[in-house]
């Protein structure tokens, strides 16, 4: 019996997925032994948030067949909402530091970000994607992609026009001493950001795997005609998916506000990192996206640590290009729907 598990594990290790996950863990551990545990902490916090953005992206790609270029802008919407919700709350906290608002205030801001993100996703579907879908679905992937390019540009510049181009940030969500875990000090905000990411991603995963609606979303992404045949209302699922995806991205933006202040193009970095994750992990694979998010985060953190800040544009993109060239369906991707030209 145990022999069986061992051999299964060894086989898994030989697959691209097993190998890369193991390699990631090993590299992460080695790097943090060499340069200090903060590396691991950074990786985990960035990875957790990236997982939120990337799962949304992979969902959009799988269910709606939209290669989302404007996903970073929903991150931006999230951070902007959190800023405007949290600023009055933090003033209140400043006057009454002992009130319970100090504890749940940041959560209110993040919930606000999620709600506004979901609503703006629905608005985008109703005003932009829906009309295109009604008019024509010829060449859908490319046309919808171009629409998202326009949408991204629109949202960035609306932000600049209405709220200005300055950095709108906060000092921090939770005040107080940093949390210490095994001699490593982590600021409360970072710890909470990670916890929130874990909770949201696992709730989301549970939703997608076990609930009727989550299964319907997966069914639509695998075979849209099949989904219609079994009685799934496609329009409802589309709306739900887009609002979920945008809310995930917005939550990431909201809970990272202490690291990334809100400004018009704040979404660009999460966007391309999330795209790295999607390419790395293959399409429509939620668990793969989560694992890929931590890999990309590690790659970024290590690049910044050992090669220098700014190079995180270069090294990860070069690596992702290599993956696209040699394993176009991604590390965890099945060959059912690959990146290859049909």
């Amino acid at each position, binding site marked *: 019996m145990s022999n069986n598990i061992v051999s299964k594990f060894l086989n898994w290790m030989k697959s691209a997925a097993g190998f890369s996950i193991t390699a990631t863990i090993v590299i992460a551990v080695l790097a943090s032994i060499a340069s200090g545990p903060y590396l691991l902490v950074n990786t985990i916090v960035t990875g957790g948030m990236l997982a939120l953005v990337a799962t949304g992206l992979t969902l959009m790609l799988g269910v709606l067949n939209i290669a989302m270029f404007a996903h970073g802008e929903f991150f931006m919407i999230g951070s902007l909402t959190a800023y405007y919700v949290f600023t009055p709350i933090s003033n209140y906290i400043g006057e009454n530091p002992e009130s319970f608002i100090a504890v749940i205030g940041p959560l209110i801001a993040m919930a606000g970000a999620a709600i506004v993100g979901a609503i703006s996703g629905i608005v985008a579907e109703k005003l932009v994607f829906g009309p295109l879908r009604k008019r024509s679905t010829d060449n859908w992937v490319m046309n919808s992609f171009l629409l998202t390019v*326009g949408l991204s540009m629109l949202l960035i510049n609306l932000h600049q026009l209405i709220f200005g181009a300055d950095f709108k940030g906060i000092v921090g969500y939770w005040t107080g001493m940093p949390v210490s875990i095994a001699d490593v000090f982590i600021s409360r905000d970072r710890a909470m950001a990670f916890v929130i990411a874990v909770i949201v991603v696992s709730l989301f995963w549970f939703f997608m795997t076990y609930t009727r609606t989550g299964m319907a979303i997966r069914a639509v992404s695998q075979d849209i005609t099949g989904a219609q045949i079994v009685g799934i209302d496609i329009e409802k699922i589309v709306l739900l998916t887009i609002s979920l995806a945008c809310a995930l991205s917005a939550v990431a933006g909201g809970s990272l506000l202490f690291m990334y202040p809100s400004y018009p193009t704040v979404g660009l970095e999460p966007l391309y990192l999330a795209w790295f994750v999607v390419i790395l992990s293959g399409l429509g694979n939620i668990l793969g996206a989560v694992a890929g998010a931590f890999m990309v985060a590690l790659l970024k953190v290590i690049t910044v640590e050992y090669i220098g800040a*700014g190079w995180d*544009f*270069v090294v990860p*993109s070069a690596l992702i290009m290599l993956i696209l060239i040699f394993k176009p369906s991604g590390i965890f991707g099945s060959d059912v729907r690959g990146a*290859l*030209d*049909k």
Partner: protein
Amino acid sequence: MDNTITSQQMNPFDKLLDKLCLTPVGLLGLVLLFALPYIPPFNQEYMLRWLIYCGFIAAMSVGFDLTAGYISIVNFGYAAVSGFGGYTSALLVINMGLSPWLAMAAGGITAGFMGLIIGMISLRLRGIFAACLSWFFGLAIMGLATKMVWLTRGPLGLRTPRLFETDSNAPFYFLMVILLFLIYLACKLIVRSKMGLAFQAIGQNMDAARASGINPVYYRVFNFTVSCAIAGILGGFYAHFYGILTPDVMHTSKTVEVLAVAYIGGRGSLWGGAVIAFPFIFIMEIVRSTLSNLPGLNLVIYSLVLILVMIYYPGGFSYFYDTHIRKPKNKVLRYFLNGRK
């Protein structure tokens, strides 16, 4: 239709026009572009600067459309490749003392080489992933340009000598219009030849094209190379016109600007983007400069137009022109719009 007979019947003027891939209205437009610096209010220097920028975007959109419109792949790293050509050209002038003219050509060649690489590595990928790959490629080059401060001075900007030793913008403007026309002509001649058919076959259905004996490897890579070489030459022009080069020219938003013009103008027409760029970019510049208290308004309008066109009129301006304007009843007018064909 037998082409030889019709071309014998054509008079020399029409023949020349046909060789230059122009219709009479196109020729008129070109003449108008040449005359524009003498017509007030366009004879002011700042307006000429805007017009040069219009011409730059117009020419970029022509080169971009060669890939996007014919083999249906959006080269999302187009601005980056262009900037790469610009940097090559600028560095050759500064460090090797090459003449800016030669350096521009060298910029074109190196950018074409970049295109060759992008074409090769994106060969097996589906449209959207090829777009992603070229995007990542662009991000990587832009990252390099930002970080190799010892070479490019990074975000501080690289001072480059200008092409003409004069304060006037007029020579630059004329050069831009000539470049625009030459680029249009080169692309048009390519797509008119047998190659153009092969491009369209590949763009519509890769497998069917392969089955009918078209080698997609060759044509796709060739297309990328030419299109990127054009971007490189234009990048060189950009560098030696503005006299300063920052990694911002490689930014994705620049590609988006070109893409928007190309698609609003009409995908797969080549001339659509070039025609639409002048009024469109010009108006955007007016909006930007007169409403400078509302930063970003021009780009909001820009993106709204792109979204509306993509939803309600994906054929763009060229499709509108072809279906509604091109076939008037009047014979003279028809000749004017279509040439003798």
